[in-house]
């Protein structure tokens, strides 16, 4: 098996005196597409933030791309973060600045270019290439906040991919999207993983958004890792009922998965 891209050992995160994440061990290997699932408040985003050293940990260690992220001085940590593409949850726009789509996507090249240095022609070529790849070239000079939620998320994905990351972290990229956009995202992630063979860690709530490339699910509940395996294995038996209450059934077909209310006709 390939070397671990992410390896957490005895990981514990404490917030306001409460343990919100307690993971004895988990490792994700190079080229894997892994989904991190679980109910609201299970600790999924906290885990992602801890991977990026945006969230302090109380105990244990996290190694990302072979480096212990929580003991790195600032410069090596910044260099490590440049290798991690991060697509955050889409927040309401908090600023009024009419940043263009191209400017937002170019932020993926900012740290790589270095402080006080301008982006090079190669940086802009990468940015434009990813915008085109994701079908955003016609929006390049539009203001980011003028785009729909689905398009904005694609811009954030373009930003992360422009970093040329070894690891891609996606935090609920399909949340609140309509069926058409959601399916576009599933196909896009499938295609990107096949083409790039990078390591993907996707946080999501719905089985329907897992592309066939996703062969492994980590299931968190109340900060604890309760299952780790294939989608079929993780959601077999009464797992969904345990998590969300009675009356759900899981289906699997052609590498895709879904949930239907069990009592439905």
């Amino acid at each position, binding site marked *: 098996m390939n070397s671990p891209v992410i390896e957490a050992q005895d990981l514990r995160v404490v917030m306001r005196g409460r343990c919100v994440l307690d993971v004895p061990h988990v490792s994700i290997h190079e080229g894997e597409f892994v989904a991190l699932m679980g109910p609201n408040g299970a600790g999924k985003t906290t885990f992602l933030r801890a991977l990026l050293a945006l969230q302090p940990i109380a105990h244990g260690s996290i190694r990302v791309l072979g480096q212990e992220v929580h003991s790195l001085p600032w410069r090596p940590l910044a260099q490590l973060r*440049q290798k991690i593409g*991060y697509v*955050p949850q889409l927040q309401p726009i908090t*600023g009024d600045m009419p*940043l263009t789509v191209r400017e937002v996507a170019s932020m993926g090249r900012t740290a790589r270019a270095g402080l006080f240095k301008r982006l090079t022609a190669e940086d802009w070529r990468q940015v434009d290439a990813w915008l085109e790849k994701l079908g955003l070239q016609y929006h390049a000079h539009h203001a980011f906040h003028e785009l729909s939620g689905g398009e904005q998320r694609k811009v954030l994905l373009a930003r992360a991919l422009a*970093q040329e990351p070894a690891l891609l972290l996606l935090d609920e990229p399909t949340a609140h999207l309509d069926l058409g956009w959601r399916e576009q995202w599933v196909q896009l992630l499938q295609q990107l993983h096949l083409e790039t063979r990078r390591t993907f860690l996707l946080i999501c709530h719905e089985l329907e958004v897992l592309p066939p490339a996703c062969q492994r699910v980590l299931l968190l509940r109340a900060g604890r890792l309760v299952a780790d395996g294939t989608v079929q294995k993780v959601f077999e038996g009464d797992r969904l009922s345990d998590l969300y209450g009675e009356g759900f059934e899981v289906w699997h077909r052609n590498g895709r998965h879904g949930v239907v209310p069990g009592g439905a006709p």
Partner: protein
Amino acid sequence: MMLSTLDLALWAPVMVGGVLAGASSGALGVYIVGMRIPFLGVCVSHAALAGAVFGALAGLKGTWMLLPALAGAMIAALALGLAKPERFRTDNNTVMNLLFTGSMGLAFLGLGLFPVLGKSDHDVRALLWGSLNYCRWPDVWLMAGVTILLFLFLVLTAKEMRAILFSRTDAAAAGIHVTLVWTTFLILTALVLTVNFQTVGGLMIFSLMTNPAAAAFLLVRGSNRALATAAALGAFSGLAGFLVSAITDLPTGATIVLWSAGVVGVAAWFRSHRR
């Protein structure tokens, strides 16, 4: 004072000062308004006022009053910019309100002490409302220095500031040195506001920070264009406000504020008719 009596040797530094104050405040405003924290300008300028008041009470005059003003402004800017209010289950607005009212309380407490101590508060009151008499060539050189410093910083860190403006968390996650760039920006903010204090006064700075940036956001897309437009509109407001003041003999600060507010109105009208 009518414009016909204008003595260029006397008023040229005031005009240049107005342009510089408008340009630098307008450029700052792009980031302050862009992050929806325009109240930061009010807090910082009033903290500078509080510093100046106590500096004057201690016997400082003229340019020397900038030192305590700068100290007050920097404390407020750094407190606001680096505070993590979520740790105390509050938010930025509450922290800004606390600092603003605290600064105002201190400033008025200091103002109240002038008659008690038998001192004149003329210099400080001039700071509060802005006074043409404060701007001379040495002041202009100082303003030009900090304006050049600010633009140099904004040009050199344009891409980092853009990322920070979009999301400080995302910028940090991408490996950008957010703390260094943001703290430097806050220090420059305090410096620019304090130095501009003499020309347009504490209350007027707020309008030159907010209005040109708001107008620029209505007119253009893209951070570089917004920065250039806001700086140009700020400079235009500073100069035009002064000229109106000189012609009509109205208070300079008030005319600059009203002019810059008018620019926002025109920009809004232009945008609504462009669509």
